[in-house]
């Protein structure tokens, strides 16, 4: 997609369908993130990507419990 079209189109989304996302596309997005500058040139980042449903449930159990309490 053309750069300025991307800039114009980006909005924050908070509701999702059940449709599986293309995993290769996710990898391209993460790779794009990794091209960002870092102050010390070292890109000292590690990303945890929650993909499996049970991993997401586990990771957000605390938030869910707090929200329903």
């Amino acid at each position, binding site marked *: 997609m053309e750069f300025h079209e991307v800039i114009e189109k980006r909005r924050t989304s908070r509701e999702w369908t059940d449709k599986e996302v293309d995993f290769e596309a996710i990898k*391209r997005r993460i790779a794009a993130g990794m091209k960002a500058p870092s102050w010390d040139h070292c890109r000292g980042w590690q990303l945890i990507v929650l993909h499996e449903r049970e991993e997401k449930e586990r990771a957000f159990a605390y938030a869910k419990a707090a929200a329903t309490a």
Partner: protein
Amino acid sequence: MEFYEVINKRRSIRQFVDREIPREVLERILDAGLKAPSSNHQRRWELVTLTDKNIIMELAKFIRPYPCRIGEPKTPQQEMFKIAYPRQRTMMEEAACVILPYFKQKYPLSEDKNGYGLMDYGAAWALVENMLLAATAEGLGSVVHIPVKKEPEQIKDFLKVPDGWALPALVVLGYAVKDPLLPTQVKATVENKVHWNKW
């Protein structure tokens, strides 16, 4: 330019030729910055945009080049230090435009007990990155200088910025010299930086 081409092309450029940037190009870059998300949906940003060479030269006086004693760099980071440290002031003096993206700081980082201070600061960096990418799409070179020590206060006084506004970085823009100095990139890929589902 195609989006991923922009992502791959962006590098920090610290050497510029003496050439003005057309106003409409700068406006497209600023507009791209202002499309970034903000933590409170308010986009409480004010962009001080310097194109007057005299003001840029005055501003550059506040930026001290860091000392660098690296002779033969042994790592990509040392390569970067050797290129970047002595050029913190000259890259500003050579720039055609310096953008100072101030954000309204509701929760100062120095008193941050709940992490809220990072919300406005973090969002301001989305604004900065959008502008770096837009500059790349426009064929410009770009780099940031992060204000440290006395610089934030000195710059604030110099530009008469009101209280309550903070500066995450100075965005430095210009047309790159032919073959600017670029350090080797550090490998950061999906293979070596990503943990699927757990660390």
